[in-house]
């Protein structure tokens, strides 16, 4: 018996190590649990008590009117209205790298909307990104911008929303994978990326500039699309307005890096924001269409203020110093891409060549738009695939969608040809792939 049990002299030491390791593991686990409990306690936000749905007569009509304007400037319906849905009843899906987040119902329906929210609960959601019941809201709801809104303006917005027609519409469940589904993590995100910021007027600048800054950095949240985002989805503040992404569209830079070939003067910007078309640039496309449609109904003085502010941001752009002659390298482009030239002649020329009815009407020529000068082909590809509706008024000529008429390779051939003929910058790589992805993204 003793011979079959080899006794090593080190065994008691190993045993002691094992015990110590078990203890260490135990302590670490305890610390982790304690840390988690502390985190959850810290991340916890109390619910704000429900109120009886206030009657419409409880609100000052002047507040309601001001709130309407602010809701238009804030472009609220873009996320809080589903395709074919009712305004403010929610349902639009914001696709992010972390999952899809659906806009909620912000009509005053007591059961599915915000009908039982007090003004304090509404203000907390706008400032801190916390729902009435205490859960943290995803930053797809841009409270990092909205926090700048004044108390008076929040009251006006609340008055406007609470006097809309209540729509019974259950909010659609978000489609988020597990780590992001865990809402308390959003508190950590806020700690990392959201600084408590109120609007502070700059006394060196005009009242108009300051109004534009207040709206642009706040409710209008232009940086939400036009500023690039980091790995965790927060705007890179040190690269404000360097260009970003929204729903598969590239939102071009709105600072010295603006690729526009005509200067964005205050007047041109104002025309663009109020009509969805700048005669020196192009028509608003993609998510910008809805922005222009809303701003066309907003207070013109506020649109003017936004124009003053963003023209200032682009004061050092290339076109602000010197506007280049418009280019048309038709022969070179046809030599490089004869197939693209033939497709362009049959599909695009009847509207876009000089002398075409649309051009005679004074619509901007292709080289004036930013897309063919951008670093990414996505905007050009999206416009060809999905067309362009006039965002304001929905009348007049529109660009038909070519997604059913042309194959990926044909769209790519046209884009290659146009980049050389009218654009600037090097040839876009992997164009077929860009087209296929753009088609997929909007396939649903």
């Amino acid at each position, binding site marked *: 018996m003793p011979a079959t049990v080899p006794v090593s002299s080190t065994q008691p030491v190993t045993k002691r190590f094992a015990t110590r390791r078990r203890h260490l593991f135990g302590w670490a686990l305890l610390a982790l649990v304690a840390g988690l409990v502390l985190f959850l306690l810290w991340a916890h936000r109390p619910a704000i008590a429900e109120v009886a749905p206030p009657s419409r007569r409880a609100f000052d009509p002047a507040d309601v009117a001001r709130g309407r304007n602010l809701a238009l400037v804030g472009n609220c319906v873009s996320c809080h209205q589903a395709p074919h849905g009712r305004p403010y009843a929610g349902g639009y899906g914001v696709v992010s790298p972390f999952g899809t987040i659906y806009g909620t119902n912000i009509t005053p329906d007591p059961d599915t909307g915000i009908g039982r929210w007090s003004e304090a609960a509404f203000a907390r959601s706008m400032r801190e990104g916390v729902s009435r019941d205490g859960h943290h809201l995803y930053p797809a709801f841009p409270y990092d911008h909205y926090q700048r809104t004044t108390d008076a303006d929040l009251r006006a917005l609340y008055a406007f929303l609470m006097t809309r027609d209540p729509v019974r519409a259950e909010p659609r469940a978000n489609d988020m994978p597990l780590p992001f589904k865990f809402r308390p993590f959003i508190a950590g995100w806020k700690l990392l990326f959201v600084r408590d910021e109120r609007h502070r007027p700059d006394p060196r600048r005009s009242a108009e500039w300051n109004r534009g800054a207040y709206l642009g950095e706040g409710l209008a949240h232009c940086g939400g699309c036009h500023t690039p985002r980091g790995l965790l989805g927060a705007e890179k503040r040190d690269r404000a307005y360097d260009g970003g992404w929204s729903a598969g569209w590239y939102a071009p830079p709105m600072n010295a890096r603006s690729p526009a070939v005509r200067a964005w003067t205050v007047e041109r910007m104002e025309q663009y924001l109020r009509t969805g078309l700048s005669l020196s640039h192009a028509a608003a496309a993609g998510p910008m269409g809805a922005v222009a449609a809303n701003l066309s109904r907003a207070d013109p003085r506020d649109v003017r203020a936004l124009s003053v502010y963003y023209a200032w941001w682009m004061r050092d752009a290339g076109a602000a110093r010197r506007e280049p002659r418009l280019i048309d390298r038709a022969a070179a482009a046809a030599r490089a891409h004869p197939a693209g030239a033939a497709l362009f002649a*049959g599909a*695009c*020329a*009847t509207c876009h060549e000089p002398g075409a*009815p649309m051009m005679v009407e004074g619509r901007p020529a292709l080289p004036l738009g930013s897309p063919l000068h951008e670093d990414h082909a996505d905007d050009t590809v999206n416009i060809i695939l999905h067309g362009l509706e006039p965002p304001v008024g929905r009348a007049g*000529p*529109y660009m*038909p969608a070519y997604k*059913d008429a*042309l194959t990926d390779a044909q769209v790519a051939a046209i884009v290659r040809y146009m980049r050389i003929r009218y654009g600037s910058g090097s040839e876009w790589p992997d164009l077929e792939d860009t087209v296929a992805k753009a088609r997929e993204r909007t396939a649903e």
Partner: protein
Amino acid sequence: MNDLSVNGRTRRVDADPSTPLLYVLRDDLGLHAAKFGCGLGQCGACTVLIDDRPAFSCVVPVAACAGRAVTTVEGLGTAEAPGDVQRAFIHEQAAQCGYCIPGMIARAEAMLRRTTTPTEDEMRDAMRPSLCRCGTHMRILRAVRRAAVARGGGVIDAAEPVQ
């Protein structure tokens, strides 16, 4: 020379590659269902099917159709033996002047090949790019609802029932 597949037959056409498909269909192949309306992809009178999807043939160059199946209303039935969508349009007397109708039929056919059970909104979105100046839209929509039923489906939240 281009080989073009139209209504199941391969046709050889001699046209510049940038020629709009509509011109080739009407002038070279004698298929007069698709109409010239605006020539700018705005009105939908020229709509045909390319690989089962609707396209404005006035702004699709013939070079874009190589290796793809083009279908015009001539390919959906004849005056003696109309197809199901055509029968639905006749039943609802959906035409006034009739100029837009081939485009409307092509557009309805494309939608029904994708789904025979669209919603009312889906159907209206599908038909929206085609304009009718006579104002028979309500009859056209009735005809499309009827055609969906004829094909074994139906508009699932139809604004009015098929009589």
